[in-house]
């Protein structure tokens, strides 16, 4: 149990520190790398909760796919050594104050609410269960969201190609 706590503290600290660095770093490529580290530590949290499939999806799709896409677009649109101009202190201060108020409000609400932790034994999750539930159309099936997400992905793919396509010179 102690090693569990240690891992949680490690991942939680990594998430918080690197997410703050990724929104305050003035070099955009470094910000992308910090985002990558945040996503990897999030998948570590999923591994801790025993959701191996979700953690693998997080690693491959988020940390592998989206971050690579973001880094590609950074390389296409800005110079690597370029530093972003610093933000005005007024904007930074007001944003920080509102964000800190939000954090305090949410955290007090979370700490006051008494969650009733379930005592039911956790479900054994393997690929068979995930596949059957994802494509099942009975009570525990998720076939409809699966189909909706596939249509959304198709639409997004077509839209991305159409938008990024070069226009013909007219």
């Amino acid at each position, binding site marked *: 149990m102690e090693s569990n706590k240690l891992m949680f503290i490690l991942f939680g600290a990594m998430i918080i520190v690197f997410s703050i660095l990724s*929104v*305050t770093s003035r070099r955009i490529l470094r910000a992308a790398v910090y985002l990558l580290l945040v996503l990897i530590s999030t998948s570590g949290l999923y591994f801790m909760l025993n959701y191996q499939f979700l953690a693998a999806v997080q690693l491959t799709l988020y940390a592998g796919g*989206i971050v690579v896409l*973001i880094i590609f677009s950074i390389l*296409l649109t800005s110079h690597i050594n370029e530093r972003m101009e610093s933000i005005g202190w007024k904007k*930074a201060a007001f944003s920080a104050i509102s964000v800190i108020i939000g954090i305090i409000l*949410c955290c007090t609400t979370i700490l006051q609410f008494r*969650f009733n932790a379930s005592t039911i034994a956790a*479900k054994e999750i393997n690929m068979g269960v995930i596949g059957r539930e994802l494509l099942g159309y009975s009570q525990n099936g998720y076939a409809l969201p699966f189909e909706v997400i596939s249509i959304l992905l198709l639409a997004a793919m077509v839209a991305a190609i159409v938008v*990024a396509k070069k226009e013909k010179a007219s």
Partner: protein
Amino acid sequence: MLNYGIPLQYFLIVATIMFFVGVYGFLTRKNLITILMSIELMLNSVNINFVAFNKYLYPDKLQGHFFALIVVAVAAAEAAVAIAIIINIYRRFSNINVEEVNEMKY
């Protein structure tokens, strides 16, 4: 509550801090790609919430797990479309700073 030695609230607090850090980035950044990165942070923190609720409150079901999977897929689609738009904007304005890209029609 001491399911794994860690109370549920700790997960929620980590996710809350991550979400509001994303909000801070969204408010202060000017570059379109960094704004997109802040949105990814927020989506990711919501995912942590879903998964933690699923594990601690309804461990015999998989709703939060599948919702997190679908959010990941939506985030991927959103990032692809957003980056296509950003590249198109860069082609027209040679710039992706939100304060200088203020014309809807060129």
